[in-house]
C-alpha cells in the first residue's frame, strides 16, 4: 500500500515539474505569437517614415521615435561601454586587495537599483540643472544603467583567458599594458562584444528612466538638448491612451522593439555559446 502511494507520488510530482516547464515555455510562445500577429497586422511602411499623426487622423508613424531611440542608445553606449570596459579591465588585470571587492559590491548594488530611481538621478543631475528635458538626460540614465553589466561581463571574460597567455607575452618582454592590449583583450573580445550587445539590448527596452529625462516628443528632436521621442516611451503612452488607432500603433511599435531585442539576444547568445566552447 505504502509502496504504491510512493510510486504514485513519484509519478505525479515528476509530471507536475514537466507541466511547469511546458507552461513557462508556452507563455513565451503566446507572448511572441500574440505580439507578432497583432504587430505585423498594423505595421506599415509609414511606421518607419512618418511622424506621429494627430488623434483621429489615420496613418502616421514613429520615425522620430526610432531615430530618438537610436540617439539615446548611442549616448548610452558612449557612457556605458568605456567605463564598464575599462573598469572591468581593472578588476580582472590590476585588482588586488580590498578595493576591487568593494568595486564589485558597489557594481552589484548599482545593478540592483530600480530603473525608475536611475531616472530620478538623471533628472537631478541634468534636467534640474538645465531646466528642461533632453536627449542628453535620457542617454545619461541609460548609460549609467549599462555600466554595471558591461563591467562585470568584461571582468568575467578577461578572467576566462588562460594565465599562460599572459605569461607568454610577458616572457617575450611585453609590458603589462601591452600584454593586456594585444594578447588578453583580443582573446576575450568575442565574449565581451556579445556581452555589450546584450547589455545594449536590455537598455533599449527601458522605459521608466526615460519618462522624466527624455520625456517624449511628437516631432523631430534636432540636437541633443531637447526632449525626444523613444520607442518604449511611445509604446507606453499609446497603450494607455483611449484611442484605437494609437493602440494599433503601439502594437506595431511593440513588434519592432521586441523583434530587435530578441534578434540581438539570439545572435549574441549563439556567439557566446560558441566562444565559451572554443575557450573551454
Amino acid at each position, binding site marked *: 500500500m505504502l509502496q504504491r502511494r510512493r510510486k504514485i507520488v513519484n509519478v505525479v510530482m515528476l509530471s507536475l515539474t514537466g507541466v511547469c*516547464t511546458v507552461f513557462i515555455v508556452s507563455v513565451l510562445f503566446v*507572448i511572441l505569437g500574440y505580439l507578432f500577429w497583432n504587430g505585423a497586422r498594423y505595421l506599415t511602411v509609414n511606421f518607419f517614415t512618418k511622424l506621429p499623426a494627430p488623434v483621429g487622423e489615420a496613418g502616421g508613424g514613429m520615425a522620430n521615435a526610432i531615430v530618438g531611440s537610436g540617439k539615446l542608445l548611442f549616448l548610452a553606449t558612449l557612457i556605458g561601454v568605456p567605463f564598464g570596459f*575599462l573598469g572591468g579591465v*581593472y578588476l580582472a588585470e590590476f585588482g588586488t586587495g580590498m578595493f576591487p571587492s568593494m568595486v564589485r559590491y558597489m557594481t552589484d548594488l548599482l545593478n540592483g537599483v530600480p530603473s525608475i530611481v536611475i531616472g530620478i538621478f538623471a*533628472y537631478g543631475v541634468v534636467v534640474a540643472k538645465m531646466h528642461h528635458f533632453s536627449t542628453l538626460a535620457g542617454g545619461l540614465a541609460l548609460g549609467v544603467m549599462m555600466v554595471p553589466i558591461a563591467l562585470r561581463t568584461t571582468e568575467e571574460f578577461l578572467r576566462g583567458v588562460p594565465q599562460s597567455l599572459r605569461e607568454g607575452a610577458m616572457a617575450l618582454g611585453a609590458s603589462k*599594458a601591452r600584454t593586456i592590449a594585444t594578447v588578453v583583450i583580443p582573446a576575450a573580445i568575442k565574449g565581451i562584444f556579445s556581452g555589450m550587445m546584450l547589455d545594449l539590448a536590455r537598455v533599449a527596452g527601458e*522605459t521608466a528612466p526615460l519618462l522624466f529625462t527624455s520625456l517624449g516628443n511628437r516631432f523631430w528632436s534636432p540636437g541633443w538638448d531637447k526632449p525626444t521621442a523613444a520607442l518604449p516611451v511611445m509604446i507606453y503612452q499609446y497603450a494607455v491612451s483611449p484611442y484605437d488607432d494609437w493602440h494599433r500603433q503601439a502594437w506595431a511599435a511593440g513588434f519592432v522593439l521586441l523583434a530587435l531585442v530578441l534578434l540581438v539576444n539570439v545572435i549574441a547568445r549563439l556567439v557566446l555559446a560558441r566562444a565559451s566552447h572554443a575557450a573551454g
Partner: protein
Amino acid sequence: MSAAPTVLPRSRAGSLADRLRLGDPFAYTLTVVCAASIFLVTCLLVYQLWLGSALSRHKFGWEFIFSSTWDPVTETYGAVPFMFGTVVTAILALLISVPIGLGAAIFLSEMALPAISDTLTFLIELLAAVPSVIYGLLGIFLLVPVLESTVVPALKSVIGFLPIFSGPFYGVSLFSASVVLSIMIVPFIISVSREVLLAVPVDQREAALSLGATKWETTWQVVVPYAKRGIYGSIFLALARALGETMAVTMVIGNTPHVPTSLLQPGDTIASVIANQFTEATSDMYISALIELGLVLFAITIIINGLARLLILTTGSKTGK
C-alpha cells in the same frame, strides 16, 4: 611575437617600446579611475535622492512612511498606500512564480536530457529579455481581458469567501499586476535555481537512490535541501526585481493612491506612482515627496539585495541544514 628580440635594444633608445613600458602606470590609472567611477555614481545617486527629498523630509519627518494620505491638493503626502502595493504585489508574484519556477528548475536539472534542458533554458532566458513595457502592453490587451472573463470568476467561485478576493473585479488591479510580475520574475528563479541544482554532486543522488528512494524522494528530500540556500538566493533576487519593476505594473495596476482591501481592487506601487506623477508634479513639495518615495524604494531594494548576497555568501561555509 617575432619582433620580441628587437624590442630590447630599441627600448634603450627611448622609442615606442619605452613609452609602452611607461604605459603601465597610465593604463593602471585609467582603469582604476573608471572602476572608481562606480563609487562616484552611487554616491551621487544617494546624494541626489537625499538632497531632492529634503523639503519633504523636513516637513513630514517619519510621519511620511506611516501616513496613508496622499493628497497633492492639500500637499499632504504619505507613503503607506504605495509601500503596501509594492510589498503585496511582489509577495503575491512570488507565491505564484516560486512553485512554478522551482518545478521547472527541477525538471530542467533532474529530468530533461542535457540538450533539451539547454534549449528550453535558452527559451526561458529569452523571456527575461522581453522589455517590461511589452509585458505591460500584453497585460492591458491580453492578460486583463482573460483574467476578467475566465480566471477571476473561477477563482471567486473557489476562494471568493476570502476577504482579499471579495468585491467586484476592476480589471486593472493588484491581482493583475502580481500575475504580470510573476511571469516577469519566473525566468530568474528558473535559471539560477537550475544552476544550483545542477551543482549538487551526483553521489548525493546515487546514495539516495541506492537506499531505495524514488526519483521524486531523491530530488525533494536530498537534492533540493542541498541546494536550499542558492534557491533562497534566487528567490530574494527575484523579489528585489519585483519590488523595483515599474512599467508593466504601472500599466495594469490602476494607479489609485489608497490602501485597497481586496486584491481585485486597483492600487499603486512606489515605482508606478513615481512614473505616473513625476512629470505632472507642479510644486516643489510634490516633486520632493516623489523623490523621497524613490529614496524609500532605493533603501528597500538595497536591503533585499544585501540579504540575497548574504544568503549566497554563506552557502560556501554551511551547506544544507
